[in-house]
């Protein structure tokens, strides 16, 4: 500490002290380390996956691995395309089923529900997100699967089967353990995520936007359609992407209902399928050769890659959706 100088002496005001101190630098360093650690972790994972999967790409070409559907560990033929199809198809079904319901529920909670109902409903829905996926899986095996097999799928087959093109989606014997059932359970699982984020986004829409539309003589529905949803659409699309990301990586519940068999891709949703994640989970312990094991690690690599590609595509989609009219200019 400096002793206070007498008034006549050199200035008692000191500006050349290190006032920011070490604390600031330590804090900055800590946050920087955290940020880099995440990047580093991702890098390590990717390097590890590439390293561990090197044997399969020595054994057969990348093209054969990615684009053929024969997965035969006995004859050491590994084609992952059917798994990719299973993952993408079941996730997209989940997304398509979940998004309208989730956004609808979020709109109801934010725009219509009386205040005493808001918190209980959102709390319950968000609680659904915390249920372990094995429980969803068990429920799907014992309840959803039979319901799909005996009620939903015969219904779809009867009414949509005869329609050309669309009918192709509903060919085959309804067995309740197929891509459609997996899609439905995924929809149920990602619904809370999409709803919770959409609700948050809708809450952020400024009241001035609603009032502006109201003052033009809009009905409640017109206010929601014309002012609230357009304002929130980037956020809602973001919510859907997070849901999709969860669906792509989801393993346990899907493994229990998707049928885990795939020899060919017929395009029917009643066909048993196999996702990349369930293939890894089911076969990891059975891998009895170097090549087999590295083929399974390679699935993980492809899964990571596809998740990344879908995320990038989704971001591009959001950008074009919002892009033109979302200048950085602030309102007001």
């Amino acid at each position: 500490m400096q002793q206070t100088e007498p008034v006549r002496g050199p200035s008692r005001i000191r500006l050349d002290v290190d006032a920011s101190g070490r604390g600031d630098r330590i804090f900055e360093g800590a946050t920087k380390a955290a940020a880099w650690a995440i990047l580093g972790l991702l890098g390590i994972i990717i390097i590890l996956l590439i390293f561990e999967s090197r044997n399969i790409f020595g054994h057969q070409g990348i093209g054969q691995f990615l684009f053929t559907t024969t997965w035969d560990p006995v004859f050491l033929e590994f084609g992952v395309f059917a798994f990719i199809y299973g993952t993408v198809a079941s996730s997209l079904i989940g997304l398509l089923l979940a998004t309208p319901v989730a956004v609808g529920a979020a709109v109801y909670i934010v725009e219509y529900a009386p205040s005493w109902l808001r918190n209980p409903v959102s709390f319950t829905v968000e609680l659904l997100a915390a249920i372990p996926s094995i429980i969803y899986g068990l429920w799907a095996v014992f309840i959803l699967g039979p319901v799909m097999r005996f009620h939903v799928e015969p219904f779809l087959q009867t009414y949509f089967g005869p329609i050309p093109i669309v009918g192709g989606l509903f060919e085959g014997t309804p067995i309740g353990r197929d891509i459609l059932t997996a899609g439905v359970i995924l929809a149920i699982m990602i619904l809370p995520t999409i709803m919770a984020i959409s609700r948050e986004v809708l809450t952020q829409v400024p009241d001035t936007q609603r009032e502006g539309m109201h003052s033009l003589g809009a009905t409640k529905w017109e206010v929601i359609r014309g002012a609230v949803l357009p304002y929130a659409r980037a956020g809602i699309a973001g919510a859907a992407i997070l849901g999709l990301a969860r669906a792509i990586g989801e393993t346990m519940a899907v493994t229990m209902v998707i049928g885990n068999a795939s020899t060919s891709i017929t395009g029917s949703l009643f066909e048993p399928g196999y996702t990349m994640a369930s293939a890894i989970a089911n076969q990891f312990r059975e891998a009895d050769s170097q090549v087999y094991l590295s083929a399974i690690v390679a699935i993980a690599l492809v899964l990571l890659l596809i998740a990344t590609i879908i995320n990038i595509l989704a971001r591009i989609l959001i950008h074009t959706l919002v892009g033109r009219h979302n200048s950085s200019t602030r309102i007001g």
Partner: protein
Amino acid sequence: MSQQTIEQTTTEAGDSPAAGMEVRNLSAYYGNFLAVKDVSMPIERGKVTALIGPSGCGKSTFIRCLNRLHELNRGARVTGQALLEDQDIYASNVDPVQVRRVIGMVFQKPNPFPMMSIYDNVVAGIKLNNARKSRSELDEIVERSLQGAALWDEVKDKLDHSGASLSGGQQQRLCIARTIAVEPEVVLMDEPCSALDPIATFKIEELIAELKERYTIALVTHNMQQAARVSDYTAFLLSGEERYGRLVEYGPTEQIFTRPQEAETEAYITGKFG
């Protein structure tokens, strides 16, 4: 809710085509909190009526009662009457949606719809209620409304740009264009210049003077000079010890600012409080 609509009033005697309003014993509540108590005053047709008073006096709440916007707040309600010509907008057979078509509003903070182009912002109200209009009719409305809001020359070459890309003052004039595009009878303005710089404010004030040729205008302002400059009538609201806002004095603007009848009005306009 009744489907019955407020009929567009036809031109009667007098030089303005717009309709006037008459507020009778209007009180506004937020839940159990009384925000505005027992206000009775006219909003003269084709004139500018300014509502002045210190912050928290309830002037914004009051003006939001005039197009039934107040009741959109949770728990908010209104008692009393507000007549548009001879029809009470709070009558049980009146649809508030129809009221807001006839009585438009411009807000404190410019609130164009950021996802819409300038063009679509202007016709946003026209496109409501299933109105079917041809492209050329819409083009005409857009040009007329933007002319009316003194914005046409600045934006006519970029109608497809976002409404959010304009400056604050332009955004506010865009909101005015949007409001007059549906040809309301009354235009309510809730501190329309409080977020704007002096030049933009001046343009809006000029515009208000033009708009009163065709519309009845009620204007909330915290700026007494603005009230004196643009309004024909002035109402002074105040919330004292009792917390709720009340109408202290209403009269021709000139009289309120030169010979106020009430001591509280005099104290306020001479800057003794608020």
